Structures are given as C-alpha cells and as structure tokens.
C-alpha cells in the first residue's frame, strides 16, 4: 500500500520561529510527542520532539554522567527550561529529518520506523509536507481499522 493512501492528512506543524514554550503547548494540545518544523511555504526544515526539548533544557554534562542522582535538586531543570522557552524552535530542532514520499510502501515505512526508532514522520510531495505517518496510524491501517479502534473491537 502507498503511504499516500494511509497517511494522516493533518498538516499540523510548527514554524521555525515558534518559541519553545509555545511549541510545548502545541505538542500538548495535539497529544503529539513531536512535530515537523516548516517554513512559510510548508517545506519541512526540521523536526522537534519532547525529547529534543528535554535535551535542550538539560546541561550537556548530564550526558557525560552515568548517573546524575547524586546531584541535589535546586530547580536547575525548571530554570534552564524557562531560559530557553522564548528561544525559537529553530535553535533546538533536529535538521536531519526522516521523511517519506507519497509513493513509499507501508513495508518500507515500517522498516525505517523500526530502524530509526521514530514515532512519526512527515510525508512530502516535492519537498512540501502533505501529511504525516505515525506508528499507530500505520498499524491501524494495516489491520483495516480506519473507522477507529472502537469499531474494530466491537467486530471482534
């Protein structure tokens, strides 16, 4: 099956100039773990996830410590997060984005999703975002549950 047939045509995305604080709000409202970042013409220029934001708010030396539990909590995480909440998404987004084309097969998507450990990825046509494909979405469609999980469970 082509990705175009199973993708979500929801075009929710974040602009590069969007502040981190607002991006967190958008992720929360849409219940997404991450979203593509686009320019004014809907070209995908990056991807920002909750994980990227947490990483940005933590000092880099945390990565070098095998365990940071020896450090007392003096509100350092909140302070760092507040510090970056007005910064544009562009500063912290990942610029190497995994994307799919409308003609890619579901098989290919499933294998890349597994290999790259991603939850969702934008689907492009000539570099412009036309939808997104997520792990849940992919699995639902494979089992013919387009109408929704409830119908599927009822049928069972």
């Amino acid at each position, binding site marked *: 099956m082509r990705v175009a047939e199973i993708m979500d045509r929801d075009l929710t995305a974040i602009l590069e100039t969007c502040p981190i604080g607002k991006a967190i709000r958008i992720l929360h409202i849409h219940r997404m773990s991450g979203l593509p970042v686009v320019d004014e013409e809907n070209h995908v220029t990056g991807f920002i996830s909750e994980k990227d934001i947490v990483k940005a708010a933590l*000092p*880099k*030396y*945390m990565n*070098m*410590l*095998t*365990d*940071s*539990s*020896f*450090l*007392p909590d*003096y509100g*350092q995480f909140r302070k760092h997060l507040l510090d970056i909440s007005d910064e544009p998404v562009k500063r912290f987004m990942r610029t190497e984005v995994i994307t799919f084309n409308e003609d890619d097969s579901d098989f290919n998507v499933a294998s890349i999703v597994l290999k790259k450990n991603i939850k969702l990825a934008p689907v492009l046509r000539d570099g412009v975002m036309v939808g997104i494909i997520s792990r849940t979405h992919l699995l639902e469609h494979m089992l013919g549950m387009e109408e929704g999980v409830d119908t599927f469970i009822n049928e069972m």
Partner: protein
Amino acid sequence: MSLHAWISILVFVGAIFTIARGYLTRATATLLGASFLMFAKVIPADVGFGFIDFNTIGLLIGMMIIVGVLSRSGVFQYVAVKTIKFTGGNGFLLFFSIIIVTAILSAFLDNVTTVLLISPIVLSLTDLLGLNPVPFLVSEAFASNIGGAATLIGDPPNIIVGSFAGFSFVDFLINLSPIAIIILLVCGSFLAFVFRKDLKIQSDRTDRLNAVDETKLIKDPALMKQSLVAMILVLLGFVVHHILHLEASVIALFGAGLLLTIIPVAGPEVIHEDVEWPTLVFFGSLFIMVGALKETGVILNVATLMSRMLVGHKFLAVLAVLWVSGFSCIFINPVAFAAIFVQVVNELALGLGMDSAPLFWALAMGACFGGNGSYLGATANVVLADVAERNGHPLSFAYFVKIGLKVVILSLLICSLYVVFRFRGI
C-alpha cells in the same frame, strides 16, 4: 641523505601535519604513512614490524581493560565528589581539591580517561555552586598532564621512554613523582592566583554542596571492593616488576586477565568498548614510521648534529633535551615526539659518551610538561576544550596558550632546577 631518508621525513612530517590540521585522524594518518613506507620498500616490512614496541602496546591494552572495569564501579567519580565535598565550599580548597584529585587519578589512569571522568563532575558542581567552570576545566587539563608525568603508566610518553630505556615503575616514582608534585603545587598556586576572582563562592550556595549524595555514584559496592583490591594488587605488581624481571606490560596484561576472570562483567564487552583500538593502531604505525627514520639514517643525522653542538657539555645536553622536548610538545603530539626522541637521545648519549639515563628523564619531563602549552600537543587538552565548548564555554586557542605557555615555562624552569640539583655531577 638518501632518497629513502627524505621520503621517510616527508611521510612523517606529512602525517603530523595532517593530524594537526585535522584532515585525518591520528590513527588513519599514521596507518597510511607506515603502510606506505613498507609498500614503497623504504623500510622492509619485517624490519618495520620489528620496531613496534609490544611492551608499550601491551601496557596500554592492559591498563585500558583494568581502568575500563574499575570505572564501571563508579569508584573514580565517587572519590572525586567526596574530596570536593570535603572542602566545605571554600573556593580555593575546592580548586586545589579538583587539581589534586585529577593529578592523582591521572598518575594511574590515562590522561584522556581522567579528564572525561572528572570534567562532568566539575561542570555539574560548578553549576551547582554558581561558579564559572572555565578556570576549573583549564586547570584540570594542566593537572592531568602534570599528574601523568609522575608515573610510568600515567602518560604515553612515559610508557615509551620507560620501555625503551628500561626504567621500572619504581624508577619513575623516585625520579619523576617528586618533581611532578612540586610542579603541581607551584603551577596550582599560580593558577589559583590567576583565577582568584573566579574562586569566590556565595555562602548560600555551599548548602547545596552538602546536599550532594556521592554514595549514589557507587553503582555496585561489591564490584567496587573487588576492583579496589585488584587495583592495589596491580600496583603492587608494578612496584616489584623489575625485581621479578618482568616487563610492566606483563603485569598490566596479567592483571587485566585476572580482573576479567574474577569480576562478573562481560569480557568481550570490556575489550571491545574500553580498549581504544584507534590509539593502538596509532602507536603501532608510529613505531614503524620512526623505524623508517632510524633505518634510513635520519635519526643518526639529527643526533650527530646535536652531539656536535653539545660536544663536551654533557650537563648542557640534558638541559637542551628538556627544553627542546618541552617546546616541541607544545606543537607536536608528545607521543610522536617521544617515539622519535628516544632514538635520538640514545644516539646522542653514544655520541657524547655519556650515561643515557639523565637524557631520558629530561625527555620524559619535557614531553609531559610541554603538552600543557596549547591544545595541539596533549590529547587531554583537546578533549577538554571540546567538552567545554559543548557545554557552552568555548575556550579560544589564544586563551589556552596565554595561560598554558606560562605553565609550561614555569614547569620547565622547575625541571631545570631539578636537573641542576640531580645531575650536576655528570
């Protein structure tokens, strides 16, 4: 000089240049150089391989495995945090505790490993105390090079010099440890004076230091106890290796083998992750390239030139080797420099008809302490500059050199006094 001699020089200089400019990694550049020299028959392959010092390589492998197992227990970071906490939040004591812990660890661990273990502790605790981490990080780099100079296993140039000259672990303790301690204290005081404004801690922040719970750093208390016992046994082995007529590498490798047998960690995992294979390729290739310089007569030419200038001045020769090594290692990788200069010094001693030992000590001191001059030479400095930059504190090259050069000159002056005191009778 022959065509082959010129080719070996060209290949060597080319490799050092490409490494310094960052075109190729040190393992790649030297592997290409060494294999080319054998491919072009500048040096026959069997002769080339004969130059690889397997005592140095074995000692490196053994220590990498031992340290790899020990660092998994969290003991090194535990010791560092415990010591820093002990200062009770006094800025100067904090500064000295960091450089002393770094120097001591570095005397027994590889410099880069030490810096990678201590720098996240320094960064997290300076963040906690609201201090600028830069003075602490820079001083940590200096301390790791100074501490590394203290023992046979502390710094690769020492391993090369020790192996070539046949110096034992105890020889290093007698000849280099005292001078390293003096230099650490003098340079530490100098650095504390330079950075005095950055060492003041606001009193309300010191409570945070007391809330640090270093016991959480110990992942596996049983592993830590076993590791400490193993480390003590290995150190005892080093102390007596010359009495047993065993190379230091044999002690390290045997210790590594026993440690992997006793301690329930996956051997292949440690061997794969903690033995730095690119470093070993670099050392092996470097020895072959130096072998080509020796076989084609370049080393002898350099040594003859030096001995002609220094004829009749044995004492001056020791000082010359010290300062030439020190200043060269500001710019050149100290390992590469030591690998060549053990050969040069050997010929020079023959040319001047003197005991080679004082010259070898001068070389070891110069190569270790000179590395502090910039981050072109000593690898620990580059690694630390990189860590600082990733944490949002870029260290400019000029800034590093401005302080580093003073540390080098101060260290070499102290070494010169030591040379005067120790070798004036030769």
